[in-house]
């Protein structure tokens, strides 16, 4: 079982219409500058390598990069830790995790939960044996203890549930159809009232 590379993962997500935030994989400073220009500041830089599973463990994420100068110095720092860097647009919103895996008994299962610290500490998620329909995906979200947080409280607008639901359904379809894929993690997915985008993702496949 192995982690598939960024470009292949991006291709699979694109195939299933799973939106990801604008991201470029770069290996040189020049490429990084061009990418940041295209995306527009502020940007995020993230160390990238097939062997890096938990980026935060190696302090491989630098956010809030506002200009070329900051970009250059951050790029240098990250290249000491990895063979490449992701330049990524900055999106603000609520963190969500969406994932799927193959259970030894029931086959593909799909999970959606609150992301970030909620994933690690509160473990607020709901789970289904795939396939899940849009109706079922809605129920999964309503089951979350943090549903009200996503629905918005005190005058805050709800996140774009329609997009979120369609991503859950797509992840379910993806695992059912792509037999060589064992596990997928979209973590975090960032959701706000307008859009829902996968920011980080990991796809594990058999063999490779």
């Amino acid at each position: 079982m192995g982690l598939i590379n960024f470009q292949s993962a991006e291709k699979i997500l694109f195939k299933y219409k799973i939106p990801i935030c604008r991201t470029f994989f770069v290996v040189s400073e020049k490429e990084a500058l061009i990418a940041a220009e295209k995306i527009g500041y502020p940007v995020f830089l993230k160390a990238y390598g097939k062997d890096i599973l938990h980026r935060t463990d190696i302090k491989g994420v630098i956010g809030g990069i506002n200009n070329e100068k900051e970009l250059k110095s951050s790029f240098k720092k990250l290249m000491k830790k990895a063979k490449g860097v992701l330049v990524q647009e900055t999106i603000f919103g609520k963190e969500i995790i969406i994932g799927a895996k193959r259970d030894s008994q029931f086959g593909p299962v799909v999970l959606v939960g609150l992301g970030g610290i909620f994933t690690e500490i509160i473990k607020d998620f709901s789970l289904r044996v795939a396939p899940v329909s849009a109706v079922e995906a809605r129920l999964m979200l309503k089951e979350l203890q943090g549903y009200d947080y996503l629905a918005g409280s005190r005058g805050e607008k709800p996140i774009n549930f329609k997009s979120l639901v369609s991503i859950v359904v797509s992840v379910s379809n993806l695992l059912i159809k792509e037999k060589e894929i064992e596990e997928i993690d979209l973590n975090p997915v960032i959701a706000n009232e307008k859009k829902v985008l996968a920011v980080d993702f990991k796809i594990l496949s058999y063999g490779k």
Partner: protein
Amino acid sequence: MVNKLGRIFNPRTAAIIGATDRIGSVGAGLVKNMLLGEGERKVFLVNPNQNEIFGRKTFPIITDIPEVVDLAIVAVPASIVLKVVEDCCKKKVGGIIVISAGFSEIGSKGEKIQNELAEMTCRAGIALVGPNCLGIINTKNNLNASFAPATPPKGNVALISQSGAILDILADKAAEENYGISSMVSYGNEAGVTLTDFLKSFAEDVETKVIALYLEGLKDGRKFMEIAKRIVSKKPIIVIKAGKNYEGQRAIKSHTGTMAGDYQVYKSAFKQSGVIETDSLEELLDVSKILALESKCENSVAIITNGGGCGVLAADYCKSQGINLAELSKDTISRISGSAEMPSLWSKSNPIDIVGDASPARYKVAIEAVLSQKNIRGLIIIQTPQIMTDPLENAKIIVEAKRLFPKKPIVCFFLGGKMSSEAIKFLEDNNIPNYGELKRGIIALRALTRY
């Protein structure tokens, strides 16, 4: 019960191979249990080493029995099971239960013999239950083809268990606490008849209203879900799942992999297929009992009590279980207040506290008024044993009320002990569930309001 299990559950003749009178043996247990139902079928004992068992003539081999044999029960050492089952196939028996252990559960060597066993019976077109099981019970026709220590009373709950010992407990407990059972099955290693075959068969069984299941693991999770989904639209399936450990040892590669552990997936699968999951064996029986005796109702109930404290506790449990307490209508309040039996200090709200010295007549007024209120769909009746309480008379009033309002479930809590035992028996003989503990019964009631 129709289908291929018909002759196993309803045999007119049965043979026990490995029958013996040796005290403490499986063979002797089987003989003892099978002879209990001798009025309904002929029982033949097979043992090549003993001419007589309990004063009855034995046959050295099943093929010597001069009649058709519907059910063959095999309890011989694993090493000779194949030979014995081959004889059963020659005899063209209707079905075989292999009690003997020593098959796939002991490793690859046992698994090989088990596969041969499965192949042989499959080729002969004979249903095979087990191996490595306790056997089966069908209370309707007094069939106890198991070595369980007790025979449960007749009723409408089918119990299926992966573990034989758990079935022993449930059989004994059902006998002690008067839980009505239609059938019991220990399905063992599923070499022939599988769990899903039993589920399908109980779905069709007219005696069975509820299917209760003790489960450790499934052989085919998706098939289970598909069949369970179909059955629960007709009758409820209640499950207790043992082995809730998470996939802790696995290398942590993704968050999804870590969180979606084995048990979490089972839990989701139960929920998706409409199977009701319970937390303990007691809860499994409690929930099964209420679903077997009462019909489902809308989520709006009332509590009548002769003890304020118990009323408050019951209301708390209802709240935590998501059971809604209805508001009393003006009509109901004035009807109760208008009765000469009722003291002015009754609670006038739900829970309806009719005060400690409540007489049977006072219970009657409250019960009838409350059940007459349309939007009250179910009723909890609590009786604390006070010196002026008349449990049996109260039980009779409840049975009468049930007759008048058959569609509204009533759950009783005749609390305490000895003072109410006769009344409780009267209630249950009249199909009204009683629980000795508020929380247990209210958890069970939840299954009624949500199923």
